[in-house]
């Protein structure tokens, strides 16, 4: 039963072409280790430098977005007197039709959905040149007070995508929403 259960869990990931997947409480240390493994895997497979950079960049921006904005966090001391904050979410990297995709998911507060959706719709509907121009414009803006850099992070993600970004929100019972973003390189 145990093996059957987890094999089907593993197969559900495999069937989606997923190579790496992380679900749970994400820290900057985990982000570093996963990113490092991801780069090594692509280097072993002789992936070209530009593709490696794109995949890595989208992975880092998505993972850092989870760490900063997930509505599901735990905080506290670890005993060593150091305060830690861990953010829950998932990030998966896979292959689909010979291309790499990166998907992230995390819960967001209901009141943040409209703003996030508007930002993503704007990016989804822009062409490559418009995204590049928007990126350059945001590069010169002073840091945003409330969003801790989310705008430029999302633009960076959209810029590395080979087709328009896909995203969705699913309302949860607790008044929050599950947010999902898929990017094809």
């Amino acid at each position: 039963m145990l093996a059957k259960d987890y094999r089907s869990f593993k197969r559900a990931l495999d069937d989606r072409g997923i190579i790496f997947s992380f679900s749970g409480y994400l820290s900057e240390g985990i982000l570093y280790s996963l990113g490092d493994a991801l780069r090594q895997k692509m280097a072993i497979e002789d992936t070209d430098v530009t593709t490696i950079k794109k995949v890595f960049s989208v992975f880092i921006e998505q993972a850092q977005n989870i760490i900063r904005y997930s509505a599901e966090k735990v905080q506290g001391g670890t005993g060593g007197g150091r305060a830690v904050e861990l953010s829950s979410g998932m990030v998966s990297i896979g292959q689909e039709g010979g291309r790499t995709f990166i998907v992230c998911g995390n819960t967001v507060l209901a009141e943040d959905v409209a703003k996030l959706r508007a930002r993503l719709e704007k990016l989804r509907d822009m062409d490559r040149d418009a995204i590049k121009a928007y990126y350059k414009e945001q590069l010169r803006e002073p840091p945003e007070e409330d969003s801790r850099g989310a705008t430029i992070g999302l633009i960076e993600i959209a810029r590395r995508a080979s087709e328009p970004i896909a995203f969705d929100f699913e309302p949860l019972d607790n008044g929050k929403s599950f947010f999902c973003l898929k990017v094809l390189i």
Partner: protein
Amino acid sequence: MSPVMENLTIPATERSPAVEFDFAAGRLSLKGESYPEDASAVYGPIFQALEAFLATATERTVRFDFEMIYFNSSSAKALMNMFLRLDRAAAAGVTVVVNWVSAADDETMREFGEDFSEDLDHLTFNLVESAGAD
């Protein structure tokens, strides 16, 4: 007058670049990766050193070498902020040369260099190819 400034040397970490700021020689270099948890904690001290240096650097030639492998979007903002500051210094009479070094096969880093340079009017921004991938 101004006291002798101590050079700023910050070793690279897994997610932040090596920094060498030689005030006497008028050279700053940033090398490596940059995707720290908090970009302002990494770039704040560099920017402060840069401000202090430029305050005494009128009519000098200064050289800045950037050889980045990867940086995230909040680091990109911090870098742009430095370039804008350098461009203002150049407008005020400091001769500023920026060398943006990237591997020949690294389109992403080269394009970042182009993006940065397009909005800078007074400093000299060179896109330099390094020997290639490691």
